[in-house]
């Protein structure tokens, strides 16, 4: 628990700093508050801020950096043995960490004393049993270098933990002392505090950039890693997808892309006509009362989580389609999970998405255009078909593109409703699979992250990210162009 104590201590120091700073400011002007430059609370906040922020920042950075550095220092201990390439090394490091954690648990449970844990040797061959007593299960017996590395890992971690606590507290105290020293009646505390707050606001805004950066980096690094062990041309142009964790997998993305496109196409074929016509009716024909009921009701569909749609596809729509198209009916369908099942359900999910976006866009068409058309004697439907739709077309295309990007990125419906077989076929009643479904199946389970079968998921994720991002950027560009046209 030293981490929580460190945190509590710096929070306590900050609180103390608040009162000290406030008091010192008032004292420096002999109790006459009117002589202070700022309200007295700002002096307190200034001290608290300068105590807390650097210490917290250091703590966070340290927490992130510590395991990386400790592992790097430990790695040369195992590097000299049987470890040639980095792939195996990560596996060994996982082992080392597991043993180190096991020793920690054993010490905490009282099975081992601290000294015993440090002096254990692999020759005695009892480590697995000892750890087993403490409730830590190890897969295989521990080799000597791994044990040594684990022990080194523990000592280094312990030392780093101690240093961290000391460093963080020192920084907090330093901040406290320094900010208290600068506190006196003439100090422009409010301006300084406001500068600080502004910095925090900017920092919060930058988290969006950090997130994007995190996504891109985690995708790019792992994708590069993947292409290093698996040829890129095979990945992009092979039509076979048959991963086997034993090795010798064929990981072609084409069947997955085909499944994704096919399902999205069916989904759009359901969602676009229904959503568009509903939007037209709601914005052009419906009375206020109908609108106030129908619009929120349609939007309920958008608020339902995708897992619900997934289950709906698997347990309701699939069996229903089987009755019509299955062996008892037309005989086109082999199982309830198929492209059609997933596509239909995804279409239902997208209806409110298309309808509310198109609704906005149709409403943005200026009334003058409608009035002009009515003035020429057109009926309402002629106005809609010949004036409003053409005028709103770019926006509607944008909305459809956004819906398409939604469909491509949708996961739960296809995981539950589309089946798992990767194939390229024209029959919509056959099971196919998608990029997202395969990301899930390749990354869940106990695969190690260095095998091509797991890393391929990052390449798939990269493809997905690029595809959806492209569609979005295009759609937003079109929509924005359209808006400008009428503003």
């Amino acid at each position, binding site marked *: 628990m030293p981490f929580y104590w460190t945190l509590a201590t710096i929070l306590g120091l900050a609180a103390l700093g608040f009162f000290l700073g406030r008091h010192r400011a008032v004292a420096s002007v002999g109790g006459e508050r009117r002589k202070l430059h700022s309200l007295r609370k700002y002096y307190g906040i200034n001290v608290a801020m300068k105590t807390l922020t650097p210490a917290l920042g250091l703590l966070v950075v340290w*927490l992130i950096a510590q395991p990386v550095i400790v592992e790097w220092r430990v790695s040369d201990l195992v590097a000299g043995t049987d470890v040639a390439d980095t792939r195996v090394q990560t596996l060994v490091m996982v082992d080392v960490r597991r043993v180190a954690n096991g020793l920690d648990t054993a010490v905490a449970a009282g099975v081992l004393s601290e000294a015993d844990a440090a002096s254990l040797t692999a020759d005695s061959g009892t480590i697995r049993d000892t750890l087993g007593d403490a409730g830590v299960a190890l897969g295989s017996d521990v080799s000597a270098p791994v044990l040594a590395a684990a022990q080194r890992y523990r000592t280094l971690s312990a030392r780093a933990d101690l240093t961290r606590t000391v460093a963080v507290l020192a920084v907090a105290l330093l901040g406290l002392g320094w900010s208290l020293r600068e506190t006196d009646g003439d100090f422009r505390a409010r301006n300084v505090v406001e500068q600080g707050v502004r910095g925090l606001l900017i920092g919060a805004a930058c988290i969006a950039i950090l997130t994007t950066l995190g996504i891109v980096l985690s995708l790019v690094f792992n994708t590069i890693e993947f292409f290093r062990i698996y040829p890129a041309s095979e990945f992009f142009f092979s039509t076979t997808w048959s991963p086997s964790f034993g090795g010798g997998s064929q990981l072609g993305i084409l069947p997955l892309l085909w499944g994704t496109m096919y399902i999205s196409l069916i989904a759009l074929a359901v969602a676009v006509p229904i959503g568009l016509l509903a939007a037209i009716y709601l914005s052009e024909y419906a009375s206020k009362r109908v609108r106030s009921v129908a619009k929120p009701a349609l939007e309920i569909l958008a608020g339902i989580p995708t897992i619900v749609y997934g289950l709906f596809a698997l347990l309701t729509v699939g069996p229903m389609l089987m009755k019509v198209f299955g062996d008892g009916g037309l005989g086109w369908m082999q199982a309830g999970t198929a492209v059609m099942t997933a596509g239909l359900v995804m279409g239902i999910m997208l209806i409110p998405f298309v309808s509310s976006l198109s609704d906005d866009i149709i409403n943005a068409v200026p009334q003058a255009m409608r009035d002009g058309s009515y003035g020429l004697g057109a009926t309402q439907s002629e106005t809609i078909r010949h004036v409003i739709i053409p005028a709103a077309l770019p926006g509607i295309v944008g909305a459809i593109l956004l819906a398409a990007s939604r469909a491509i990125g949708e996961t739960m419906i296809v995981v539950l409703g589309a089946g798992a077989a990767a194939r390229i076929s024209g029959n919509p009643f056959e099971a196919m699979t998608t990029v997202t479904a395969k990301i899930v199946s390749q*990354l869940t389970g106990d695969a190690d992250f260095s095998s091509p079968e797991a890393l391929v998921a990052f390449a798939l994720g990269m493809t997905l990210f690029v595809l959806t991002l492209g569609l979005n950027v295009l759609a937003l560009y079109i929509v924005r162009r359209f808006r400008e046209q009428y503003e």
Partner: protein
Amino acid sequence: MTDATAAAALAPKKSIITVDDRTQKRNAAEKRFRAYGIAAIAAGMVFLVVLLGSILLNGVTAFQQTFIQVPVYLDPAKVDKEGNRDPEEMAKVSTFGYKPLLIEAMAELVTERGIETEIAPGDMDALFSSSAVAQLRDRVLANPDLVGETVSFNILAASRVDGYLKDRVSRDSVARDKNIDAGHLDIVDALRAEGDVVKRFNWDFILGSDASESRPEQAGMGVAMLGSFFMMLVVLGLSLPIGVAASIYLEEFAPQNRLTDVIEVNISNLAAVPSIVFGILGLAVFIQFMEFPQSAPLVGGLVLTLMTLPTIIISTRAALKSVPPSIRDAALGVGASKMQSVFHHVLPLAMPGILTGTIIGLAQALGETAPLLLIGMVGYIATNYPDGISSGFLDPNSAMPAQIYEWAKRADPAYYERAWGGIIILLVFLFAMNAIAILLRRKFERRW
């Protein structure tokens, strides 16, 4: 003059009272078009009704469970061999020691009710859940004085028996079932007539923990609900302050420059990134790189925070934008600093809008499944309540949608019922959150 009359004579005589063909066609087209619109909305409504209907129809039964009321003679010779009623001594008798007691009690109940059956007394264990034995043992260990007496117990019936009462299991399907015979169902019918087998509301489904694949009758949502709760705490605690801070900066302070543009484009793009990509981010950054524990609500919460941030930022900015500039000007006019005008005046006025947006963002995060799949919150069987706050954040747990997914994947159809039931629980939370958001908006919304 003559020309004009000639032209008039050439034109067909038309009355404006009778409608001509062309107008008729156009009016018909108008009607058709309107009908398409109504049909589209009707289709949407039908989908909604079918969806909600099938959820309710399939899920409501999950809240009821079949129990068997059976008097059990707690034989001291089997439960407490030493005879000193010492709970520690008695704990040595495992559930294996208790099973015969229940089987005997069942057989006795059957003969007592005068039910003719060809089922051997030893096969009576198909009637009750295997968890019933553990229930019995716990009761006895908690209260050793019961030993030697005949105590009436309310035990969970086996999932097949439960399914039979709920029409999920039929006599036809039982013929191919190794777990239970038609004879058992006869006993169930007879006991039901006597009132020994009853269907009751099952609190354990709402409060209990997940169970192994072979005993769906015992599985519940409780622990997964706590997992979701801790995740939502993380999401609320991080995304509200960060989202509000970011929006305040972008809306009130940001200069028109490159950085601001980049941030804005970023936010609108992040809002459209598929949720599974956030799962990949969580896996690579939080679990691979930072080595956070897998399946922990803390990591799930962090990933969902990043996912909901854009939603919250967008709605917060709209709320800030709707506060009229006159408020800011007035505050600045009486000598407030820019920061004070924002934090003392604009922010409180925008608060209802911000909270509404936050609740809707949270509701979205609560139902999200895909990213949780990747950080390992699926596949983990949530069996233990976390003890304490820090273990609530760090111990492996499941989450409501992940638990539903897990159940949907299991082979036993009894779990499908649980999955639908779980969806009802999840939707109740979502509707409640949305209702609060709507109420907030109605109550505090101000038009300037």
